[in-house]
């Protein structure tokens, strides 16, 4: 990846598109503070984080970034509620508060009656919603979603997009990697990558508003 210069403003909803090997994963890892830059600078929430060490990066990931992964990445032995509480546990939020926040977040994604289920008792869409609730826990500066609908059927994918659009309306900053153009059309801006370079960066003309396919909670 070279010569990449992207700025994502607060409360933006950006899709990053590109083929595999185009560099979008590397960019995601850098935005997510999982990887560090060999050259250049990265400002997150106004702070230069490109020179930070492992421990400081862990704290940034914890407090500033909410990850949503393609393969959900829930811990299989924890319940939905415990999974959502996990980042707050590392942030040393008191047990009472973190239970409260986690319940709130799960309600927000429509899983109030699935809180004590383990991941293997949930559908793919529900798992991803737990993951989104988890990402919201520490009120992150940015929500980073890596192909969040990649493992979901279109109906569940649509549900996820409803949630993202709602969050965005409420002020969240969301960066989403996808290779599905119609999913990207749900965002406000599309940045396309090819061979480690940005080939286009433009606002979305006709944003698709996700239809609520009557969130089934069964």
């Amino acid at each position, binding site marked *: 990846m070279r010569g990449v210069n992207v700025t994502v403003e607060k409360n933006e909803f950006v899709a990053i598109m590109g083929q595999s090997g185009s560099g979008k994963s590397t960019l995601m890892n850098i935005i997510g503070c*999982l990887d560090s830059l060999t050259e250049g600078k990265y400002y997150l929430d106004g702070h230069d984080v490109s020179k930070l060490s492992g421990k400081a990066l862990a704290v940034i990931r914890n407090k500033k970034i909410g990850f949503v992964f393609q393969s959900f990445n829930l811990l299989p032995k924890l319940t939905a509620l415990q999974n959502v509480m996990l980042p707050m546990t590392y942030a040393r939020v008191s047990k009472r508060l973190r239970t409260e926040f986690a319940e709130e977040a799960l309600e927000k994604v429509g899983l109030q009656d699935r809180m004590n289920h383990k991941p293997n008792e949930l559908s793919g869409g529900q798992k991803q919603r737990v993951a989104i609730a988890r990402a919201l826990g520490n009120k992150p500066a940015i929500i980073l979603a890596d192909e969040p609908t990649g493992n979901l059927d279109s109906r569940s994918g649509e549900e996820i997009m409803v949630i993202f659009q709602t969050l965005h309306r409420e002020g969240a900053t969301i960066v989403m990697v996808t290779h599905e153009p119609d999913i990207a059309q749900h965002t406000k801006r599309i940045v396309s990558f090819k061979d480690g370079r940005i080939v286009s960066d433009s606002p979305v003309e006709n944003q698709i508003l996700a239809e609520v396919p009557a969130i089934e909670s069964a």
Partner: protein
Amino acid sequence: MNLLESLSSAIASVYSNKMRSVLTMLGIIIGIGSVILITSVGLGFQESVQSDFASLGMDSLYVTVKTDKDIASDDLLTLKDCDLIAGHPNVKFVAPSWQISIRVPVASSEEMQQAVLVSTNDDYRFVNSIELEYGRFLSSQDVANGSRVAVIDSQLSKKVFGRSNSVGEKIDLKLLYGTEEATVIGVVKSEELSAVFALPAYVYMPITTVFDIYGSERVDVVFFMLADKDQTSQTALAVNKMLELSHGNSDKYNVQELMESVETIYRVMGYITAFVSLVGGVSLLVGGIGVMNIMLVTVTERTREIGIRKALGATSRNIAFQFLVEAVILTGIGGLIGMTLGYAGAFLAGTYVGFLPAFSLPIIVGTLGVATVIGLSSGVYPALKAARLDPIEALRYE
């Protein structure tokens, strides 16, 4: 994540892999269990022996004929030897002892009570610290006259007469060749129901009386007590010499302190304890390696989990701590199980042999400490390995 939460999540993780966890703990369980078993049995034995011997005159010495030599009848100990020993200026009390097994009919029933007849003299009371409960002990007069008197212990008194004070009663003593009658002149305190040596009921009679009945002259043991205890070894040597001179033999007698025989028991016990502890130690070492091995497997298995946790903000220290706590929980629980089994085994062995194992707080604390240290040292490497994982690689791990 605070300590309590780390503990509960580690316990959950250990519990979710029950079979593997138990197998992993096995080395620790066996190691800790065997150390606990042997030390508690050893200590219990020691305490029990100590209380047994505390009631005996521990300062006493005793002479026996060596059993591993060719013994002629001239070499045997007699009452003359007692007088000889009494002649030594540093000897205060001398008591011969000749013991035979007898039966005593229980009054008003057909039953028989086993007892040991100790034929001795009035000094026996001092060399073996006998405590009187009723009446009196044998007197020098009884010995001189060969009186038909007996001192019995309260255990026997209760059995035979149904009460502790049986002074003045006639008691029948079934010997090998018939029944002899004697008058009870005193009741002495029974030995506490002793653990290591199940002590029988005792009857004491003047040795002269018994010799009359049996036409015998030989004495099993001569006990004696010294006026000046600092001279113990010299006096013991001198007594040996006197006996050899008088019998015209050499190297036929043992002169020993009661204390010495106790110390011999302790020494043997010490060797056994050391040996078993060594075996336990080896088992702990192997157990520790097993724990390390399983922890390494666990780290590999949970690479993805580690990646997720790191992405969500766990620091390397959080991760290292998590695995370290798990290792310590494994060995800690193993230690607890081992300790429980060890004590259970000790109790079982104890009831079988007849004494209680000793609980020792330092040993319990020490054992758990050792288990923790093993957990820490075998957990460090896997924990560091987990902590050093690159989150991107770890997340990609299938």
